[in-house]
């Protein structure tokens, strides 16, 4: 599909226009691009560089500096394990380990059938519910080794 016919590029173009193609709105543009595409692919980053008249190295540098931006596509479902202090103290590192083993991939990776990505986060601000995992944007409070995999099975089935 060419960029001109891909609707998502129209959406991105509109959001850049709204920000008046300001160079200093780069992070806002990256946010809306990630929202539109689900991740920031190299083509998308190059396109943004061209439209904002910024060097590609700058756009790439900013996109890779911040943890929130993903340069690889996510699976159809995703589980985010919180590794913030409150969750860590309650054993979230062990939960992550178990999930990684169960699906045979590491945090940041996607299963080969693209069904599931495992991600990690620093804190959702839901620390009184620790340890939390987030299944497709739904917070699962007070998870255990057992409940975490059950939640994931439920999500991807």
């Amino acid at each position, binding site marked *: 599909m060419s960029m001109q016919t891909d609707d998502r590029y129209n959406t991105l173009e509109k959001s850049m226009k709204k920000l008046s193609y300001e160079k*200093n709105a780069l992070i806002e543009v990256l946010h809306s691009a990630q929202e539109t595409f689900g991740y920031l692919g190299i083509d998308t980053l190059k396109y943004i560089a061209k439209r904002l008249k910024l060097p590609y190295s700058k756009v790439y540098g900013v996109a890779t500096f911040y943890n929130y931006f993903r340069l690889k596509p996510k699976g159809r479902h995703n589980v985010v394990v919180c590794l913030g*202090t*409150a*969750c860590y103290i309650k054993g979230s590192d062990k939960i992550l380990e178990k999930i990684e083993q169960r699906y045979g991939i590491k945090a940041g990776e996607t299963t080969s059938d693209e069904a599931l990505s495992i991600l990690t986060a620093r804190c959702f601000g839901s620390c009184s519910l620790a340890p939390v995992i987030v299944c497709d944007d739904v917070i699962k409070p007070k998870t255990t080794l057992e409940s975490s995999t059950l939640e994931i099975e439920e999500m991807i089935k």
Partner: protein
Amino acid sequence: MITSTAELQELANKKREENEKNPREISSERSTPFYTKQRRIVLENEGLIDPDDIEDYIAHGGYMSLFKALDEMTPKEVIEEVKISALRGRGGGGYPTGLKWESVSKVQSLQKYIICNGDEGDPGAFMDRAVMEGDPHRVLEGMAIAGYACGANKGYIYVRAEYPIAVEKLNRAIKQATRLGILGENIAHSGFNFTVEIRLGAGAFVCGEATALIASIEGNRGHPRQKPPHLSDHGLWGQPTVLNNVETLANIAPIIKNGGAWFRAIGTENSSGTKVFALTGHIKNTGLVEVPMGTTLRELIFDIGGGVEEGRKFKAIQSGGPSGGCIPEHLLDLQVDYESLKSAGSIMGSGGLIVIDESSNMVEIARFFMDFCRSESCGKCTPCRVGTTELTLLLDKFIKKEATKSDFELLKEMCNMVKSTSLCGLGQTAPNPVLSTIKYFEDEYLAGIKND
């Protein structure tokens, strides 16, 4: 449009009558010790008002302080009141807010900025999230008063992207306040203009640091820079800038309403007012608690927090996040204020309090924080970039019980080196969790040294 105190009062009265007709249920939990030991200023509206409705905020006295400042006070008098209150920054540094405002107010410039730091980087803390989501107008009111006091007409709120609901509530609040003319041009016919915009963070802990945050708003990687120049001279886009934490700003409206002396009378000699803490970890009652400064750790953990869960034994409490330290049991009668925590080898930080029971190993906890700093180091300066990596590897040796005696000396030496030679607060404080656990739990390190 609301253009005078009288109109604001009228709207408040009307809404109050409406509320009386449809009273909202107030949770009966408020009479348990968890609540009765608290003193709520920052969180006074939490759960009581509808954050989506500006009229509800106004019915609870909202925006009265802003109108009072605009109607009755000069910018200098506002700053004087904040100085009298002795309010100190709640973002971690504890710098007196009045002095910060004063230095910006004295700089001559056509353009100045107020920035609200809503990055809440300490993983395990969620005070600022609660304020932004539960009482967003309070933040806007604090910012507008700061703008009036310092001569700034533009504000930014830097919110972490992991808080989408906070962003939504703040956006709605800004729209509603703008519609009523409480933000915008010539507010209450005073000639004062003030607008607020939101900027999203993108998941970098270092962006909570003042100069990195500004780099991020300007669309760059969040690399801190050397200070001076300070933000008061050279902040956002090179202009004089005040940066305050969410909770700091949430204290402003009550201070203007009740007076600086009222605030000064709460808390301790050097730390006035209350502090919101996020109680988490191995503790029965988790959640946000707001108490006067000077409350002891024992009261916080046992009276309010209900003690350690499942009858296990208390071991330590961690305060100050990745820049803080662990405080052992024999210091539980310590009063919580900036100086006391510092003297115990920790810091107030933003207010995360994590209770740790006997099942945890302190070296592993120190490693957890070090690894966090390692992965969040921006990489600009060598002591922090390389030092935090080396320190993580060293701590691993202790955890695997493969360390030598000289590793222990090296660990301490390297901690002090990273502390004293790093460029910004991240590196300067990264060794704190290690140093404080060595201080109080040295035997757990010694247990990691192999005997040969």
